């Protein structure tokens, strides 16, 4: 009845999970596009922040794929991506509050996602809750 037994758990891409995937997909698209433009046009201005933008975009892409797929491999990918995302938003968020000069407001995670209505801060918690809830045997 554990997660790895497969088939016993609910797929993450069902019901409210689909709304969650939609939000993750939009963040994957916007963060990746933003990071891509920043790196292509003015990487030298803030290499660390712009690399982080692109990294955040990749993490959102992996989380979207993990949540949208079915099976233990996808579930592990989703767990890893969402946990990384949580650590990322907390670390970068805290860092920007205390050492603002090193991080312009140019990443999704700066100031805990203030430029994105704090959705980047809420999203990993919802993601973890959904993974836990669907991971339990029905």
């Amino acid at each position, binding site marked *: 009845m554990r997660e790895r037994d497969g088939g016993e758990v609910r797929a993450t891409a069902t019901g409210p999970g689909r709304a969650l995937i939609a939000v993750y997909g*939009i963040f994957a698209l916007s963060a990746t596009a933003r990071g891509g433009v920043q790196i292509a046009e003015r990487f030298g201005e803030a290499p660390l922040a712009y690399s982080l933008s692109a990294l955040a975009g990749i993490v959102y892409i992996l989380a979207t794929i993990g949540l949208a797929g079915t099976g233990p491999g996808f579930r592990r990918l989703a767990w890893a991506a969402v946990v990384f995302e949580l650590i990322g938003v907390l670390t970068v968020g805290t860092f920007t509050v205390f050492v603002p000069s090193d991080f312009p407001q140019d990443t999704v995670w700066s100031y805990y996602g203030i430029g994105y209505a704090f959705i980047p801060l809420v999203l990993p918690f919802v993601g973890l809750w959904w993974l836990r809830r669907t991971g339990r045997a029905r």
Partner: protein
Amino acid sequence: MIGALVLVSTVVLAAVAVFGLVTTALNRPPDRWHRIGVGAAEVLLVVQALIATYQVLLGGVTLPEQTTFLIYLVVSVCVMPIALQFATAEPSRWGGTVIAAGAIGTLVAVLRLQGLWVPGA
């Protein structure tokens, strides 16, 4: 960019978002009204994108952040069809929320486009 089109598409996207959330609350799967709403929004967005692309690439309008503007333009027309497809693939109450998420994301992209539209700056 046509100001009136920005206004109308913003209103339509907001209405589609609210409608999607309401049908989720009422436990109704996406129906033809969702398709009509998304279709109307998409027509407006495509017309806007064609006009703006023409203005930027051929019409002699120069923008300070042209690449970013064009990327947002692509995003603004791509999200709604994907959201509608994903929302209707599993007919459940949550389809409306998927459409609402797409509409809000697109709405933000349209507002960003409006902000980046600084001709000649």
